[in-house]
């Protein structure tokens, strides 16, 4: 459950937006860091160079005022005053150290100008200090090295990196968790909306979304719009039902009278009258209009009404046996084998007559569309996904995959079947009955050829088990 909500939040649109924002923050923090780091380092280095320059000037003045000995004295005085932060070293032309705090003249040091070098304090230890300084050439082959430790700059740099790393981590944590919480909230509201839409699709259009927030936000706007859309759909549906009820009522009586009148005329016509045959055709035409009309009305009534309250417990296995027994002679006439596999008695809750109608329509189709000597199998199964499934398979011509979705549309008929009798309402009625029972109607191709129809009741309409 938790992992599901986490997954939902992580996959949500709002979380993705939050993630994008966190990324923007990180990038801008990084850019800021680079600026600060670069400029800070530069100004610190400039400051160090300034110190070196003033040192250099001091040494130069001393050298000019006195001689080498005066210089040596100044070096020694500086070494005592400055400690480890500074390096002073005076060497002769033979690279012999004359004064200063350097044990060895660093190798690979330029003979003159700005230099950078590191000194390992005690051999074998990793700790070393980096220095920046200048080598000044003096007359008679003497060289003077003055350098300052870069340790402070390095320390400052280190602190800067640390600070910014922590800032980035905190930004990331705050951003992600904030994004997660925000999107979880958004996801919860959106999934409320989508759950409601689902129940409406399933048939209960009277449901409405609730608005609990004191301040109206954009999701509340959406909610309000969905609600007003639902109001309108409900009103339109009501009108359609009203209109079709009116049509039904207004047409029933004239249709009834038309048929009665035709019957009366036929009864009065002499047996050899030439109008007898056309009259009988008219009567059967009227009957097929009445059949279509009744079927349409029945589907509309089933789709509009909620009959689930009148459901009773019934033995679905026995019902299947009854349907098969009724249709067996029809299959036998086409030399088809019709088999029922329903090993256990299963009690479900439903409308007995409607379910009989549904299975009868499916079986009638199977017999009609399967050629002679074909095989039709009806099974009562418990699919792994739960519930109870009536599976009806034939080895007829099947239905092209592109047409499967349209099978339940009113008046839809697969092209190859148009020559056979039928009004294209049989499966619409089955579908309406399935919807009423919250059952699922699905089609799949049979192994070699033919069609399998799955009429699957959800587990909850099965209170006896």
């Amino acid at each position: 459950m938790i992992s599901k909500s986490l997954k939902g939040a992580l996959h949500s649109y709002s979380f993705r937006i939050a993630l994008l924002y966190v990324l923007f923050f990180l990038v801008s923090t990084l850019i800021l860091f680079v600026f600060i780091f670069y400029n800070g380092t530069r100004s610190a280095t400039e400051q160090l160079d300034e110190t070196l320059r003033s040192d250099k000037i001091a040494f130069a003045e001393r050298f000019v005022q006195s001689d080498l000995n005066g210089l040596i004295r100044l070096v020694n005085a500086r070494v005592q005053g400055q400690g480890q932060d500074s390096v002073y070293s005076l060497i002769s032309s033979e690279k012999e150290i004359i004064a200063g705090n350097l044990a060895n003249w660093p190798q690979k040091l330029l003979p003159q100008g700005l230099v950078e070098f590191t000194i390992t304090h005690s051999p074998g230890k990793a700790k070393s200090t980096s220095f920046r300084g200048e080598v000044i050439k003096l007359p008679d082959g003497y060289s003077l090295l003055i350098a300052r430790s870069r340790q402070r700059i390095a320390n400052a740099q280190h602190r800067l990196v640390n600070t910014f790393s922590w800032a980035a981590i905190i930004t990331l944590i705050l951003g992600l968790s904030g994004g997660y919480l925000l999107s979880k909230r958004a996801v919860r509201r959106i999934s409320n909306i989508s759950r409601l839409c689902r129940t409406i699709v399933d048939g209960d259009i009277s449901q409405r979304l609730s608005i609990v927030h004191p301040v109206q936000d954009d999701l509340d706007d959406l909610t309000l719009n969905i609600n007003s859309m639902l109001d309108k759909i409900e009103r339109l549906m009501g009108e359609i039902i009203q209109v079709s009820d009116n049509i039904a009522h207004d047409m029933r009586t004239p249709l009834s009278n038309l048929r009665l009148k035709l019957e009366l005329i036929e009864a009065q016509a002499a047996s050899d009258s030439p109008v007898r045959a056309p009259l009988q055709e008219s009567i059967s035409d009227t009957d097929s209009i009445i059949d279509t009309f009744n079927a349409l009305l029945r589907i509309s009534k089933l789709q509009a009404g909620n009959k689930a309250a009148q459901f009773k417990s019934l033995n679905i296995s026995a019902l299947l046996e009854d349907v098969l027994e009724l249709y067996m002679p029809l299959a036998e006439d086409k030399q088809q084998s019709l088999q029922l596999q329903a090993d256990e008695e299963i009690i479900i809750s439903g409308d007995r007559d409607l379910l009989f109608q549904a299975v009868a329509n499916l079986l009638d189709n199977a017999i009609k569309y399967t050629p002679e000597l074909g095989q039709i199998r009806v099974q009562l199964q418990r699919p792994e996904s739960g519930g109870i499934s009536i599976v009806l398979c034939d080895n007829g011509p099947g239905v092209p995959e592109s047409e499967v979705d349209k099978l339940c549309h009113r008046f839809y008929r697969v092209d190859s079947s148009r020559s056979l009798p039928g009004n294209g309402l049989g499966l619409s009625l089955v579908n309406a009955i399935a919807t009423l029972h919250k059952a699922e109607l699905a089609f799949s191709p049979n192994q070699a050829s033919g069609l399998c129809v799955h009429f699957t009741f959800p587990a909850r309409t099965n209170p006896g088990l």
Partner: protein
Amino acid sequence: MQFTQEIDPTGVFHTYPGLKEKQRMHILLIEDDIQTAEYIIKGLRKNSYTCEHTPSGGDGLALALQNTYALIIVDRMLPVMDGITIVKKLRDSDMRKPVLFLSALGDVDERVTGLKAGADDYLAKPFAMSELLARIEALIRRDTQKNQVSEYQIADLHLDLLSREVSRAEQKIDLQPREFKLLTYLMQHQEQVVTRMMLLENVWDYHFDPQTNIIDVHISRLRTKIDKPFDKPLLHTVRGAGYRLHDQ
């Protein structure tokens, strides 16, 4: 008024031999659509019934309570008083004559409502005259011959409900359970027209619309067993209406 039997060769409006000996059957029709009522009256008269008609529910109830009718046909949606109320009041005042509902409300639920109110049969509009006539005949017959029997006989065909045996000309005939039930219903209504819808409702006990004429297939199965091996056919098809077990 003269009482005549018209012979109808088409079989749409049938004549019933049994009626000859009986009193003329008087039927009350409570129907607010004048044209429908007119056709029904014509159809009934053609079939030797006499008929009284009123479009008003209130008047209908008053007439019905006189209890002089063999059968009452009631529409459900009527001015002044609806059909359900009429039937309930009739049954409350102990009027036991058969009542048939004729209604535009054709759902199974509506049918159940009608039958629960006390009606004996329920026919949805639009309907065929032949269907109405067959049902009227069945109701009136049921009303006049109330004693239960356990054996039925027509010509040389014999059916025993207790031993569940069927024989014709002393030859035993094996029937499937449903075929037995079908033949029983036909035997109980011998010499009457029985429609396909009546067979579905009474023999199969499910209310549904078969897309195919599935009943015909079952009848022809039954026919091969009870008629085919013998000289004289007993189970006849009545065109445009249904079937009839008929001797001669």
